[in-house]
């Protein structure tokens, strides 16, 4: 993992859920934790901030978790998306795997150890994606330079 500060976003309309998860993560990890009780506020924040993992509740008034996570895919494609669901929402979670590019889903009541592990793996995955992107960009740049160089060589011999 890189030294860069890792950020986890938690979105649930229930204040008690975001506070519980925040307390746990702040005690047990060194991730920066950003919590939101409104999905649209979270989307606004995402436009400006880089996050590695997004954990969202499924049942939220205004915007459900799948719609929210699908929207975050546009803004932060590299973030790992985790859906928090009630027991009865399992089918929806499975639907979200394709729609929102879901990384994982967790059922309420969740297990903290499992949550920690999924978040850690999600961060690693997100960092790998970022690294991959950076390397692809570097390769593309090198390729461009090579093409220019080749063009110059050809021109020199003509």
């Amino acid at each position: 993992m890189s030294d860069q500060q890792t950020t986890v976003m938690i979105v649930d309309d229930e204040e008690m859920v975001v506070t519980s998860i925040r307390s746990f993560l702040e005690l047990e990890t060194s991730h920066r934790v950003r919590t939101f009780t409104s999905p649209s506020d979270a989307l606004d924040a995402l436009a400006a901030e880089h996050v590695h993992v997004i954990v969202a509740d499924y049942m939220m008034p205004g915007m459900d978790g799948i719609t929210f996570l699908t929207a975050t895919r546009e803004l932060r494609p590299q973030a790992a998306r985790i859906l928090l669901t009630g027991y009865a929402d399992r089918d929806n979670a499975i639907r979200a795997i394709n729609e929102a590019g879901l990384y994982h889903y967790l059922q309420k009541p969740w297990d903290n150890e499992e949550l920690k592990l999924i978040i850690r793996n999600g961060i690693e995955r997100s960092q790998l994606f970022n690294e991959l992107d950076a390397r692809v960009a570097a390769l593309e740049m090198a390729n461009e330079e090579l093409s220019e160089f080749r063009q110059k060589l050809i021109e020199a011999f003509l």
Partner: protein
Amino acid sequence: MSEPRDPHTELDELRRAQAELVNSAKLATLGSLVAGVAHEINTPLGALNSNHDVIERALNKLQGILEDEVVTPDELDEVRKIVRAIDGVLRTNGIAVERMVKLVDSLRTFGRPDRADVDRVDLHEGIEGTLAVLGHEIQDIEIVRDFGDIPAVECYPDRINQVFMNLLLNALQAMGEHGTLTIRTRSNSTQVSVAISDRGPGIPPETLAEVFDPGFTTKGERVGMGLGLAISRQIVDQHSGDMEVESVLGEGTTFTVSLPLDLTEGEA
């Protein structure tokens, strides 16, 4: 040729079949209730479960720090962090417990298994209790409480709450995820009326007369088996009350229950 059947035996069989139908509708209502409670309890339960784990972890960390009887400046920072975590979870514990107490309170109003008898009650309490356990169905639906200043009504509260449960659930399911549900209560010197209106698709005039028939449903096999309204009608009849339905296609449906202030039991 077979013997003509004894009309008394036939009547008994019919009664038995009717009792079975009534029971299955009760079970369907109970099913909705249980699903609602399970869902409503899951959020505070999830928070409490997580918080319990956090406190255990925090305690372990504190014990680890205190083990060698010396607290270094670095450890002091760690202690501050632990205290912050404990503070956060204790605050949420309070909110979670309060939520569960409220839920159990509304269930008491709703179920009253200990008071299945006649009582004089405020119908608003029953309506609020039912709405509380239906919380998971409500989502983006706006609830308008057009409550009048109504007197307490003598009735079988658990049965009347079953009527509210059926009517509110029907109204919510008619609208899906969005809409407005209006509950209007009024009274005069002899009776109280509760009108529950949805902004759903409405019921076609040709089927409006059938809605109280046992077996009528627009919801398929899944819910209630089409007995909810038939049972509700029966309960209201039992209270010598009245139940009416008005519906406009594309605008919505209103069910109105009228109950006399004093109970004179009618034919069930």
